[in-house]
C-alpha cells in the first residue's frame, strides 16, 4: 500500500458498486412502473431491486469506511466529501422547495382565483359559482369528500419538540465525540435515534388517524395532496436520517471516529439538522397557518 503524505492526491481505482447500483435502480424503477400499471409480479422484482440498492450502499460505504480506517484519506479527500455532502443537501433543499412552492402558489394565488379573485372572476362566475375558497380546501369539486385537518398543537407540536430535542442530543453527542467520551457519544446518539424513530411512529399514527377518522386522504383535493406529499417526503427523509444515525451509532460503538476526524458523523448531523429545519417549515406552513 502506498504511503500517504499530506498534499498528495488520492485517486481510488475501479469500483463495481456504481454499476451494481444502476442495476438495482433500474430493476426497482421498472418494477415500480409495472406495479403501478397493475402487474402482479412486479411487486417482487421491486423489492429485489431495492435489495440490490441496499446491498450496493453497504458495499460502497463499506469500502469507503475501510479506506478511511486505513488512513488513505488526506485533507483534500475530506474537503471533497464536505463539498459533496453540502451540495447534496442543497439539492434536497431545492426538492422540498418545489412542494413548499406548490403550497404557497395554491394558497396565495390559484385557490383565491378559483374563488373569483382578480382575473378569476369570470371563471368563478361561469364554472364554480358558490365555491368558497377558504383554506383548507379540496376544491370546487369537493374532491375526496368532507375532511377535517390535524390540529397543530397536538401531536404535530409534540413532534416539533421531539425533532428539536433530537437536534440538541446529536449536538451533545458531537461534543462527547470531540472530548473522546465514547460512552456519552453512544448514549446521546441512541437518544437521537430513538427520538427520530419515535417521530416517525407518531407521524404514522397521525396518518392512520387522518385516513380512518378525519377523512383526510391523499385524494382530499389540493389540501390532501400538499399535506401528504410534504409530510410524506419529510417523513421518508427522517426515516433515512434515523437509519444513517443508527449506522453512525454502531460505528461509534466500534470506535471508528476520532476527535478531529469524523466527517461521516458530521455529514449525518448536517443531514439531521436539515430535516429538522424542513420540519419547522412544515409545522408553520402546513399545520399552524
Amino acid at each position: 500500500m502506498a504511503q500517504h503524505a499530506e498534499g498528495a492526491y488520492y485517486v481510488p481505482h475501479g469500483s463495481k458498486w456504481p454499476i451494481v447500483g444502476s442495476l438495482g435502480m433500474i430493476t426497482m424503477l421498472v418494477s415500480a412502473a409495472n406495479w403501478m400499471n397493475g402487474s402482479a409480479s412486479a411487486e417482487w422484482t421491486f423489492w429485489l431491486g431495492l435489495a440490490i440498492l441496499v446491498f450496493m450502499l453497504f458495499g460502497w460505504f463499506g469500502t469507503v469506511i475501510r479506506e478511511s480506517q486505513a488512513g488513505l484519506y488526506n485533507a483534500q479527500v475530506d474537503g471533497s466529501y464536505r463539498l459533496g455532502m453540502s451540495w447534496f443537501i442543497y439539492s434536497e433543499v431545492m426538492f422540498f422547495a418545489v412542494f413548499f412552492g406548490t403550497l404557497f402558489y395554491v394558497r396565495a394565488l390559484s385557490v383565491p382565483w378559483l374563488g373569483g379573485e382578480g382575473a378569476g372572476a369570470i371563471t368563478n362566475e361561469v364554472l364554480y359559482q358558490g365555491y368558497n375558497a377558504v383554506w383548507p380546501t379540496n376544491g370546487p369539486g369537493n374532491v375526496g369528500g368532507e375532511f377535517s385537518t390535524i390540529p397543530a398543537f397536538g401531536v404535530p407540536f409534540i413532534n416539533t419538540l421531539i425533532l428539536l430535542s433530537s437536534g440538541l442530543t446529536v449536538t451533545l453527542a458531537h461534543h462527547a465525540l470531540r472530548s473522546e467520551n465514547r460512552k456519552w457519544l453512544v448514549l446521546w446518539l441512541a437518544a437521537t435515534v430513538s427520538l427520530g424513530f419515535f417521530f416517525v411512529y407518531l407521524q404514522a399514527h397521525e396518518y392512520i388517524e387522518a385516513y380512518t377518522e378525519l377523512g383526510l386522504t391523499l385524494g382530499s383535493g389540493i389540501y390532501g395532496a400538499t399535506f401528504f406529499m410534504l409530510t410524506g417526503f419529510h417523513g421518508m427523509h427522517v426515516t433515512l436520517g434515523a437509519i444513517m444515525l443508527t449506522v453512525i451509532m454502531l460505528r461509534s460503538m466500534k470506535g471508528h471516529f476520532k476527535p478531529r476526524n469524523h466527517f461521516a458523523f458530521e455529514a449525518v448531523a448536517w443531514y439531521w439538522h436539515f430535516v429538522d429545519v424542513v420540519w419547522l417549515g412544515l409545522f408553520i406552513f402546513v399545520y399552524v397557518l
Partner: protein
Amino acid sequence: MSTDITSNDLDHAHDGHDDHDHKPKGFLNRWLFTTNHKDIGTLYLFLSLIAFLVGGSMAMVIRAELFMPGLQLVEPDFFNQMTTMHALVMVFGAVMPAWVGFANWLVPMMVGAPDMALPRMNNWSFWILPFAFTMLLSTLFMDSGGPASGWTLYPPLVLQTGNSLAFVVFAVHMLGISSIMGSINIIATILNMRAPGMTLLRMPMFVWTWLITAFLLIAVMPVLAGAVTMLLTDHFFGTNFFNAAGGGDPVMFQHIFWFFGHPEVYIMILPAFGVISEILPTFSRKPLFGYSSMVYATATIAFLSFIVWAHHMFTVGMPLQGELFFMYATMLISVPTGVKVFNWVSTMWKGSMTFETPMLFAIGFVVLFTIGGFSGLMLAITAADFQYHDTYFVVAHFHYVLVPGAVFALMAATYYWLPKFTGNMYSEKWGKIHFWLSTIFVNVLFFPQHYLGLAGMPRRIPDYSPQFADFNMISSIGGFAFGATQLIFVGVILHCIFRSKVKATGQVWEGARGLEWTLSSPPPYHSFTTPPEVSHNMVRHAD
C-alpha cells in the same frame, strides 16, 4: 458493518504517485468499473454522439412528415411522440451528456488535478444514463406509445399518456440523479482540486462556465424531479395538484416546469460560451478580451435565468404585473449576453486570425447564436409574443440557439480538443467540408421557419395549411441535408481516433494556452500526478 463483503477495492487504491499510466486490463475493468475521468468522459461523449444520431433520426421523421401538407408518413399521435422524444433525447441525451463529457475530460486537466474529486461517483453518474435512456426510449414500443405531450409534459394532456407515463417519469428521475451527482463532482473538483496558483480568477472560461452550470443543475434538477413526481401521483395515486376541481391548477405545473426549464436552457449554452471563449483567443492569437467581465456576465445570466421563467407562458393567463415583470427581466438578459458577444468580437479584433475548423465553428457560433438571441428578444416582448407563441417562430428561435449555438460549440470543442484527447490530428479538409455544409444547411433548415411562424404556422402539428408548403419543403430539404452532413462528422471523429496517421504535438495549436496543452497528446492516464505550479504565462488571459 459490511465487513462480510469481500472487496479488492482497497488493493487497487493508490496515490496518484504510484501510477505510471497503468490503464486497467480488460474491457469491463476499463469501461464498466472505471474511475478515470478521461475514460468516463469518453463514455459520455460516445453516448452523446449516439443520442445525437437517435434524436436526429426522429427529427428526420418530423421533417419528412412536414415535407408536404397533408398526412403523409406517420400517424398524428406518433408525430407528437417524435417531437416529444426528439426534444428529450437531444436535451438530456445529446447536449447535456456531451458537456459533462467535455467537463470530465477537461476540468481536471485545466485546473491541474489528477482526476475528478469523487471518481467513483463519477462512474455512477455516467452509468445511470444508458439505463435511463433505454427506459425512456422503450416507451415508444409500448402499447400506449411514448409520451406525446411535448417535452414540457404539460398536464392535463400528458396525464392522458397511458401506461408509459410512469416509465417516462422514472427515466426523468434517473437523469436528474445522474446530473446532480455529475454536477456535485464538477463543483467539488473545481473548488477543491485546483493546483497551487490556479486562483479562481485565473481559471479558464470553460471551467468558470461549468462551475456556474453545475450550480444551476443542482438547483433545478430537483425541481423537475418534484414536478414529474406530482404528475405521477396525479396519474396513479389520485392527487389533485393539477386538477382545478380539486383546488389544484394545471398552470402551476407550467410555472414549476419552467422554473426548471429556463435555467436548463442556460445549462446547455453556458459551457458553449466557455468553449467559444477558449477557442477564439487561440486562433486570434490574442488573450480573451474582458476576461473578468466574461465571468461576471456568466454569473449574471445564471442569476437572471431564475427570474424569467414565465416568458414561456405569456399567453396562459397571468396577471398583468406578472407579464410585465417577466418581460423586463427577460430583456435584462440581453445585457450580459451582449457583453459576451462584444468581448468575443473584440477578442478577434486586430488578431492574427487563422481559420482552422474549430475557429470556423466558433465564428459560426458567434454569428448564428446571436441571430437566435435577437429572435429571443423579439419573443420577450409580451404583446408581440401573443402572435408568435407556439408557432414555428419559437421553433426557429430555440433551434438557432441550440443547433448553430450549443451544437456548433460542441463541434468546435470536438475539433479543438480531439487531437489532445487522441494524439492524432483530424482531417482538416473534411472538417472544413463538415463546417460549410452544416452552416449552409442549418440556415436552409431553420431560417424559413421564422417566416412560417410569423405567418402563423403552429408547432407540434403534423399537417398544415397549403400556404406554408413552399417554406416547409425548403426547410425539410435543409433538414435532410444537415442530417446527412453529420455523418461526415461521425466519419471525421472515427478517422481521427482509429485511422489518422498525423500525430498531434502536446501543444497542438500554436496559439493555445492553458494547463491542458502542457501535457502530452494523448495525456497520461492520470493527468497531473503531482500538482503543477501555475505560472502567470500558462494562464490564457494575460490581462
